[in-house]
């Protein structure tokens, strides 16, 4: 291929990639531009993309709207989401990696039974237990506890840890055992330091699921004090006189922190998603 055709091909590639990207990010651009526009200029067809009459007024309005006991405080939605997601992620990393190590590397009574149970539970979607869970936990409605406790242990996370631990070379672990190190020490000092990639993956996948959780909070929470962000967004949207600028400002405030975290750690995000497709 001559240099000239190569350059043309490259330019064409860039052109199509840019075009596809533009179409794909249009809704995101629309959200950010709309959040800065007056309420009646957002729902305006293609003109919604034109950045004019921009101001941060809508953001002020969001904070002003959520500034009382009755509506809930805006920062409180944040705290709820951050707290609940953190407990799910950190608690999940601890208990799920522990059981996965026991399943992958230790011999104990009932091991095969538990492994079978985990494999079975991986395919059970949360929706299947949502209604009875509501029934069982109805006394704990409107608490933080009810929002994180069902999600800490996760068969899927156990499975991800398990497949990773099985793939680790066992020589170092075995020689440490022969030197008299107990299973807890081997786990803490040998297995965990070797397993950073899987811990990163599980952290990101669990965080995304917990942060975006909707169905369960919808069932369990109707008070403003413990309402997580995505639910607050939907409640605000449904109560509102469709002040689109203000709703969009709420949306930006909801998604911006996650977007920043994502952009900073995108390599890890993309690797963890790729690794979630574990070999059947």
């Amino acid at each position, binding site marked *: 291929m001559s240099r000239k055709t190569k350059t043309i091909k490259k330019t064409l590639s860039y052109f199509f990639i840019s075009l596809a990207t533009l179409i794909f*990010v249009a809704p995101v651009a629309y959200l950010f531009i709309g959040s800065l526009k007056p309420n009646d200029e957002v729902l305006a067809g293609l003109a919604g993309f034109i950045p004019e009459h921009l101001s941060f007024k809508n953001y002020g309005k969001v904070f002003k709207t959520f500034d009382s006991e009755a509506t809930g405080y805006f920062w409180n939605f944040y705290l709820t989401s951050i707290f609940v997601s953190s407990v799910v992620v950190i608690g999940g990393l601890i208990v799920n990696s522990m059981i996965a190590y026991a399943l992958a590397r230790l011999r*104990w009574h009932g091991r095969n039974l538990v492994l079978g149970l985990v494999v079975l539970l991986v395919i059970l979607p949360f929706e299947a237990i949502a209604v009875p869970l509501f029934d069982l936990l109805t006394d704990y409605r409107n608490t933080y506890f009810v929002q994180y406790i069902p999600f800490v*242990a996760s068969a899927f996370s156990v499975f991800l840890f398990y497949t990773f631990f099985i793939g680790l070379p066992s020589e170092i672990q075995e020689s440490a055992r022969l030197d008299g190190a107990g299973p807890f020490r081997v786990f803490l000092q040998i297995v965990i330091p070797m397993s950073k990639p899987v811990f990163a993956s599980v952290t990101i996948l669990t965080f995304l699921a917990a942060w975006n959780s909707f169905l369960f909070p919808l069932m369990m929470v109707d008070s403003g004090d413990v309402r997580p962000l995505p639910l607050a967004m939907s409640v605000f949207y449904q109560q509102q006189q469709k002040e689109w600028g203000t709703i969009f400002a709420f949306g930006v405030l909801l998604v911006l922190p996650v977007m920043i975290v994502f952009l900073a750690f995108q390599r890890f995000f993309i690797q963890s998603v790729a690794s979630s497709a574990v070999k*059947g």
Partner: protein
Amino acid sequence: MTAVAAKAPKPRKRRKLGYDNIAGILLSLPALLLLILFVVIPFVTAFYLSLFNVRMGSSHAPVFLGFEQYRRILFDPETSGTFYHSLLNNFVFALIVVPLQTGLAIALAIMLNQKLKGIAFFRTFFFLPVVFPMSLVVVIWTLFFSRDDFGMFNSILSAVSGGAIGPIDWIGEPAIALTSIAIMSIWAGVGFQMVIVLAGLQEIPTELYEAASIDKAGKWLQFVHITLPSLRNTLVFVVMVTTIFSLRLFDQVYLLTSGGPLDSTSTVMFQAVTLAFQEGNVGASSAMTVVFVLIIICLTLVQRLLLRQEKEIK
């Protein structure tokens, strides 16, 4: 894999096994207890509740009905209509989303797998919607679907056709509402699939393509005879996950259309939740949940079968 793992740590002394036994049980206990309490018991409860006439907030003692709820859902012509209608919606949704989303994911992955400067920068944008909560996605897309002239799609249609095509009610028209939800879901989810396919593409040895080029096989032949077969397992996985996700469809329906218009976007999960929370009929809702899980289990078994076949061929 399991059998190998069980044999892996060969205990030299009996005492060592005793220690491992205690350690194994202790390490498993927290997660195991939580899984039993919050997954196993609720599921067993779902089955148990499905055998009774349980009503939310009712003071009457539940009446044992046996499999009556299942009969009503599956066989009673008067009451089974909604269930089958919703299940059909799930499958239609899957029929739209699975091929479109998988095809788009493959196309995007191939496009973004080119060796070009700054390609990682572009990948970022396609993954971005994955971090958007569905409640926010729905708000943005409500304005895209808006039925007046100011809706984004209507505005584009009118600009393209010079005003010849009038405004369409994207989510209010029973015939297209489900397709609209599907398009929105594809936008929100395709980045996830794209990343998985991209990882699969990068595992294909480049020698295969080089050999094909020497044999003068064109790009399309290379795609059909090298790329697709090499991606087989990845694609089985992607298709299964997308299918199961289509059956679980709830958030979008609840937020965008509430099952309407005329039940045209109602899904099995939406029905189950509505039955429990709007009609207070926990028994019927639980029965529907159990049926739903059985369908998912069947689909998963099909997936296992497909993957096993592949191993045998190899």
